């Protein structure tokens, strides 16, 4: 070429260097996502939540199913960290009794009975990750049973430990969200992809189907479907039925995103360039189209997850989803349904906190991902 070729570094920000020039889409997305403070906080929260899902039994100290009639409706119990200046976490012994006049249950702490908390103590038996049998728990007590001594978040009317039940509920609610979203994702990508790829009549039919599904009010739809579940189904059967019911509506949003991206991308010149250089249809889809909307799908999925979780919680809260003895956030909140029990034991509302926290966290992360999803669109 006749023209002088300039060092291109001079023309583009040199201080940022080679790193950015060879940065792949995921790196660019990460760099952008990292700047989103709320999203980062949300991401950490979500990681903590899912760690709790994995180690639910380990973090619990009481068997969530065990009822202790003598310790029902215990208020949350403070943990004392220091004993005479030294770090020695302990709780005080409690005795339950009934007030002879009001018949209310009253608890008396005994400041002389100091029960030290132990880390990695033995407790009830469970299988870690469903395979490794063990009885170690993060905290516990040496003498006596944890069920009768530790009540971090108090107990419910049947005397079951709320902290341990919350962990069990977290496991169910958060996995149900994941399974439903996976199912929605599959349906969404399948139908959205077909719609965007073939267009024409296929597109019209799928779009109408989506519109019809979306125009039905979801709560009555879910209620109808869930109410139809046979009463004698096992916990596992109900669990899967609920995921299917939830994803039935959830996929439409994802299908919409996939189709939209598909249609937009098909207009991009680089897709035409690939076509003109002789690429096959499959190569265009998997080499050009899918990687281009992957990030958008991930963002949309993250935003869909809280909806799934809320759906499960509300269904179960209404008594139509997961049913006791299985435990989920909705089931836990069901205990707080009556004004009376809330007035008597307000700590039963505690399970609402993780629900709110996880919904916010997912929304923050989803927003961050959505902003970062297209690191090239400036």
């Amino acid at each position, binding site marked *: 070429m006749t023209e002088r*070729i300039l060092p291109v570094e001079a023309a583009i920000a040199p201080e940022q260097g080679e790193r950015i020039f060879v940065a792949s889409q995921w790196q660019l997305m990460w760099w952008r996502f990292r700047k989103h403070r709320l999203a980062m906080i949300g991401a950490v929260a979500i990681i903590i939540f899912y760690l709790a899902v994995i180690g639910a039994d380990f973090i619990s100290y009481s068997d969530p199913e065990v009822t202790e009639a003598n310790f029902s409706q215990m208020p949350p119990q403070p943990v004392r960290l220091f004993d005479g200046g030294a770090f020695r976490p302990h709780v005080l012994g409690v005795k339950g009794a009934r007030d002879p006049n009001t018949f209310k249950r009253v608890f008396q702490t005994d400041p002389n009975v100091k029960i030290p908390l132990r880390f990695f103590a033995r407790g009830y038996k469970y299988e870690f990750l469903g395979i490794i049998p063990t009885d170690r728990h993060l905290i516990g007590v040496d003498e006596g049973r944890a069920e009768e001594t530790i009540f971090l978040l108090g107990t419910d009317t049947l005397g079951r430990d709320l902290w341990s039940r919350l962990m069990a509920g977290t496991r169910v609610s958060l996995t149900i969200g994941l399974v439903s979203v996976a199912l929605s994702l599959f349906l969404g990508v399948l139908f959205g992809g077909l719609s965007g790829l073939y267009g024409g009549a296929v597109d019209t039919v799928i779009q109408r189907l989506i519109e019809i599904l979306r125009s039905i009010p979801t709560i009555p739809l879910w209620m109808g479907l869930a109410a139809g579940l046979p009463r004698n189904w096992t916990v596992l059967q109900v669990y899967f039925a609920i995921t299917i019911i939830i994803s039935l509506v959830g996929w439409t949003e994802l299908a919409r995103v996939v189709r939209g991206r598909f249609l937009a991308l098909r207009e991009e010149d680089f897709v035409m360039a690939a076509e003109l*250089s002789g690429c096959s249809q499959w190569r265009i889809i998997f080499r050009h189209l899918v990687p*281009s909307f992957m990030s958008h799908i991930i963002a949309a999925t993250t935003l869909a997850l809280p909806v799934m979780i809320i759906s499960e919680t509300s269904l179960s809260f209404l008594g139509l989803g997961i049913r006791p003895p299985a435990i989920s956030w909705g089931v836990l909140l069901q205990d707080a349904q009556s004004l009376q029990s809330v007035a008597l034991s307000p700590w039963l509302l505690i399970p609402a906190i993780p629900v709110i926290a996880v919904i916010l966290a997912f929304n923050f992360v989803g927003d961050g991902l959505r902003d970062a999803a297209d690191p090239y669109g400036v």
Partner: protein
Amino acid sequence: MSGGDKQPLLQVKNLRKLFPIRKGLLRRKIGLVRAVDDVSFHVEEGEALSLVGESGCGKTTTARCVLRAIKPTSGEILFRTEEDTVIDVSGLSRRELRPLRSQMQMIFQDPVSSLNPRMTLFDIIGEPLQVNGMRDRQQRIDRVEELLRLVGLPPEYLQRFPHAFSGGQRQRIGIARALALNPRLVVADEPVSALDVSVQAQILNLMLELQQQFGLTYLFVAHDLSVVKHFSDRVAVMYVGQIVEMAPSETLFNAPGHPYTEALLSAVPQPDPRLRSRRAALQGDVADPANPPSGCYFHPRCRYAVDICRVEPPKLEELDKDHFVSCHRAHELTLEGVMVGTRAERQPIAGAVSQVSSKA
């Protein structure tokens, strides 16, 4: 129509592309956009034919039909292959087209959208090689490096992503990709309109040099007449889906035969204040291709229009050798081109040229 005894590289006959206008829930067809309406032209091997015209006149659609990025409604697109056989590509299926793809390539207008932001230069430029049978990675690396050097980019940039490059550089990458398979016909759709003014010249120079080096044939789409004049051997002027004039570049710019061409030429602002034209600009708007006027489509804006123009559509006829015009009054009108006076007298930006060259 063809100049030599050989069949032209590309011959388009009576090309038509109609787009349905759909409306309503059931997407009923309520009309047709006549985007390309009976267009015929040919491109000789090694020449550059430009398509010019106002926005929406069907240039891009014509170019895309030729490359079979879209399927024409009717007409023939005769392409002479490497083996000297002439194939009508207008009706071929995807599969039948694939072996021909390597011989015709495209350079795009938008330097951003034409490169997949998620692929490295090696993947972008190497893709045509890979899908056309060059399986060996090292071989591809060598070829991509060679192509990068050819378009004036350092070969070390192989592993970079498009976002590391400016508009002009991206356009070079697009050119490298188009050249990867040694095409014979290159369709360039407004390759410089999205570029900074100071970078346009670099790309035009590069394309002209590559043409000389490889004997490329260009179908060049543009709306900037100065660029067209600079770039092409022959020019076809389009108006509402039809070619209204086609001639060698020099003829078209000096002695246009169609009133629309004259109007276009006079509308181009000259980069020289001493040439300020006070000629009246063309009035009115471009006709709607879904609902064109009767007779000559240009008649509502034509200052030479007579009665017959309103009823009878003119045909594209040969005015002089190689000079085709579609106007009832082509023979009687003497229209004004851009060369008023000799070029030596004008030397529009002589000041600048002499100043810098004396210093250089």
